[in-house]
């Protein structure tokens, strides 16, 4: 019975998926389509494009991605704990305190290593 609640969500997702395609299709009837060599160039403020596009970029983006993974998984662990917190009580608080403490050690290490620094 409870899983039936997901049916409207599925319908919504399907409608939300169809919506932009319908709009693209309708606009396709109305809009002009006059491609030109210069118009189809990359936008670079009017001057001709030069150099690599998918070149190198700051390594910091990778660091942020890895840190995000750790902290987001941690937040996901907090969720079921939070919902059942009333039943867990003091035990739950201590348990989660230890968990967060371990994480804070890692966080302090990352901070000290300069992983949170944006250079």
């Amino acid at each position, binding site marked *: 019975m409870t899983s039936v609640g997901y049916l*409207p969500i599925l319908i*919504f997702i399907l409608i939300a998926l169809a919506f932009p395609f319908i*709009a693209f299709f309708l606009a396709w009837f109305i809009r002009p389509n006059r491609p030109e060599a210069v118009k189809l160039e*990359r936008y670079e403020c009017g001057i001709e494009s030069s150099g690599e596009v998918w070149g190198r970029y700051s390594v910091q983006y990778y660091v942020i991605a890895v840190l995000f993974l750790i902290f987001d998984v941690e937040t996901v662990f907090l969720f079921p704990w939070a919902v059942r*917190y009333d039943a867990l009580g003091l035990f739950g608080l201590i348990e989660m305190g230890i968990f967060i403490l371990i994480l804070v050690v890692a966080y302090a290490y990352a901070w000290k290593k300069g992983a949170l620094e944006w250079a």
Partner: protein
Amino acid sequence: MSETLLRFVVVPVAQIAVVIAALLLIVVYLVLLERKINAFMQVRLGPRRVGWHGLLQTVADVIKLFTKEDITPRHVDRLVFLLAPVVIILPALAAFAVIPFSGGSFRVGSVGVRAWISDVNVGLLYLLAITSLGVFGVVMAGWSSNSKYPMLGGLRSAAQMVSYEVPLGLSVVSILMLAGTASLVGIVQAQESAGRWFLFWTPYPQILGLFLYFVSGVAETNRLPFDLPEAENELVAGFHTEYSGMKFAFFFLAEYINMVLVGCLVAVLFFGGWLPVTFGIPGLREPLSNFFPFWGGAGAMLTGFFWFGLKVFLVLFLYLWMRATYPRYRYDQLMRLGWKVFIPLGLGHVMVTALAILVRRG
């Protein structure tokens, strides 16, 4: 059979149609409101040529977007380029499937209709999960454009959205603890039975939680003062530089729908959703929660829409006010705020709330 069909297909489809139509209308007038508020804060008049005081300005803009040429530059990855706006609008819309817009109910035949599309017991988890999918659209747009500005904008945007995802999740954990459920309807009902909104919960009001949630929400939606992904004086338009016509329109639409979503969530999580504003006076609660008692449940639903809309409007006004007030952050400042200030604050907030619940219980 026909009752099951009515209950699980016809009513939800009608509700979805109403929600999408209402969202489009709200976005159209939110854009106008933004332009008007910005104008008045800068002592200008804003748009006022199209329609009475510019009331049809955005309608004209939508027509313009429909009739604009949709350029697909030569170097792009065509499939990903086409899919990016779809991937960005899908989570923005689908998130509204679990938002409770109002209380009360009325009957169509034998089927009761409520003011939410679905009430699942993992509502908040679903919301966090589906809204975080939006970042894929940004990355896809930035990468597939195969152009320098979109690439840089997409990278920045992905890092920013991902960074503020963590404090956003942390600020919500304390609400889960207070409500004891992840269902959004349950969260509002918990505030109803507590007799006060979670913002004013004693002994530890959730003001810090609201601050963390709202600021992270602003950063997630890439709005000023955190609009670095599309900082127009450095990156032209960020990840959607190469987009035009209807595809651009969907990026634009998704941004505003996400703003409305943050407004709805602030209202539900911290301001008691559809509950009336009573200033803590118990006698006011009864008359203010139903303006149309002769209509019964439908009247209560209409009244709930009013209060909910009012709260969402205030949050959106704050958004626009911030845009007119604050200068843009620098990128390193943004990252420092997210990682070095908000995450410790969020973790501390969770632990203090946990302690406060124990203290209250004694």
